[in-house]
């Protein structure tokens, strides 16, 4: 089967500053349907730059990018916007939800810019369904500031799913979350991946990368390692272990002030 994402010798040079920065220096990559890929590397290694190009937010300086068969590197601004809307789903480190806008309205947002005509009822149903997938349908009318970080990120995931994308892209989705919430979010990703959704995520935490299936390490804009994850962590199991440990702590240590 043809890969969903295929990039060939892609480069990105930022020349806005005094010195041009060669952030990505020739990356070639194929991602197939159903993959769950972690993009790792130290800060400044070019992870976000690569993600932005994969996400059709930015155009490569050189190289080719085929998404689902379409040559994305040649498209204009509006076509890129349509690609982002139709074929890609985004999850950002900082959640990037619209403030003072309900969870449901946030999830509906990509539908508003969709090409297909939809009744507002259909939009609502679709958004509600996606909130259900991430387990937040009960919070649909909450504003972002009424939700915890993990919940906000789950709303963002629901928003990324709403147009049934080919690939879900996430740039450090757990970067702003504590470790338990991070595992919860990874659990959501694993569940989605099991249902067949292709996921590419950036992380610099090794234990988070362990929840993925394939691990790609970037250094100074080039891929230095690309391997399958051995002994994959399963979020459900980890969460259970955490819960047990917590319960034991309670038994031994007496009353713990609720946090």
């Amino acid at each position, binding site marked *: 089967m043809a890969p969903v994402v295929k990039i060939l010798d892609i480069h990105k040079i930022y020349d806005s500053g005094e010195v041009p920065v060669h952030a990505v220096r020739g990356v070639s990559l194929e991602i197939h349907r159903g993959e769950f890929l972690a993009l790792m590397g130290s800060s400044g290694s070019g992870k976000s730059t690569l993600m932005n190009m994969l996400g059709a937010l930015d155009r490569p300086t050189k190289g080719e990018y085929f998404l689902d068969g379409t040559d994305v590197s040649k498209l204009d601004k509006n076509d890129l916007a349509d690609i982002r809307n139709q074929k890609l789903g*985004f999850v950002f480190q900082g959640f*990037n939800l619209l403030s003072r*806008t309900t969870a449901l309205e946030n999830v509906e947002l990509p539908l508003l*810019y*969709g090409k297909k005509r*939809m009744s507002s009822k259909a939009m609502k149903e679709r958004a509600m369904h996606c909130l259900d997938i991430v387990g937040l349908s009960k919070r649909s009318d909450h504003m972002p500031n009424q939700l915890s970080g993990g919940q906000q990120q789950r709303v963002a995931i629901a928003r990324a799913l709403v147009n049934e994308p080919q690939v879900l892209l996430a740039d450090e989705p757990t970067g702003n979350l504590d470790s338990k919430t991070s595992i919860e979010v990874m659990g959501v990703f694993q569940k989605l991946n099991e249902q067949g959704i292709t996921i590419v995520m950036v992380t610099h935490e090794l234990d988070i990368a362990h929840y993925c299936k394939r691990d790609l390490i970037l250094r100074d804009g080039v891929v230095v390692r690309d391997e399958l994850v051995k002994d994959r962590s399963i979020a459900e199991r980890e969460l259970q272990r955490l819960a047990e440990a917590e319960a034991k702590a309670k038994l031994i240590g007496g009353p713990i002030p609720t946090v």
Partner: protein
Amino acid sequence: MMRFYVTILMALRALRRNTMRSILTALGMIIGVGAVIAMVSIGNGAKAQVQSAIAGLGDNLIIVSPASLNTGGVRGGAGTGVTLVPADADAIVADLQEGNKRVMSVSPYIGGGGMQVLANGLNWRPQVLGVGPDWPDIRSWRVTEGTFFSEEDVKTAAKVAVIGKTTADTLFPEGGAVGQMVRIGNIPFKVIGMMDTKGFNNNQDQDDVLFLPYTSHMKRVSRRTSLNSIYVKARNEDVVDRVKSDLTDLLTQRRNGAVDFQVQDQAEIAAARTAATDTMTYLLGAIAGVSLLVGGIGIMNIMLVSVTERTREIGIRLALGAHGKDVLTQFLIEAILLSSLGGIMGVALGIGGSQLAGHYKGWAVEPSTTAMVIAVVFSSFVGVFFGFYPARKAAAMDPIEALRYE
């Protein structure tokens, strides 16, 4: 298009999210449009009032006055100019009333301003006017009690007076004014008649008046030798123009060619008087227009702030698939909604304000539908004009840059 409808919804949501700011932003428009509507309503009212007052002067009326009386639409005070004398009125009677019979009646007119009048142990300051016996006919103004003074009274400068309703009610609260004596200075006048109620004209109570034979006014009260004007009533509508040229010819001849007087029919009087209110209306309208402009600049200012402040939001929208055009429309519609809602509220404020002014100041107020429609359309146009630059700025943003904005 679906997107357009959704864009309106989003713009409304955005405005609602910042209700207080939206109201403050629209306030400029509200006040600007309110001022326009109020000015036009009051101007219209004043104009209608002047017109109806002049129509109420009487039919087929022509007024001869010194040239300075109506220069530039500004009414001179009593006694401006010294060119009209009773002999002019006599000549008009001889030539045009008894001569070619195109004139029905003629009356000299002396406006006195307020004068102290004593009667019945009370005193009051009505307008004391000197006119001729044909005055009731010329003004279509009935005498309800007693009689008006006669030709004979004029000839002898008789000490008689005809009283207006308000003056009568004030000086003789118990009634029975006719037959009583009133004094102006030391001179007693006998009240021989009372006029019907005429109402207000230009905020002036026309019934607060005392009529004397013009000769009595000149000799006994004001000691003047000239008239303020001469009222002439043409026989019918068709001869009004002829009478005007006859009057001009006659008076020019009597002055050896000097034209220091003017002859105006009702339409011309109306035009001269409304010209003043028109000028006022345009002037105030221009000021109101400037305040609309200021309102528009206020909207632009807030929209620019809003675009900067919402850079991240714009980034999110672009990242999720909005085209530049969608963002442009959204901000443009926000600006238009702000300005046109401001316009609509301004219309309401203008109507309310002018009614209030009308109520407390006794001004006639006539709201104009045309002005309202123009104001609302214009205010949305202001939104388009002043909202375009900020909206384009928003639409031109790069999604990554915008998302990175703190």
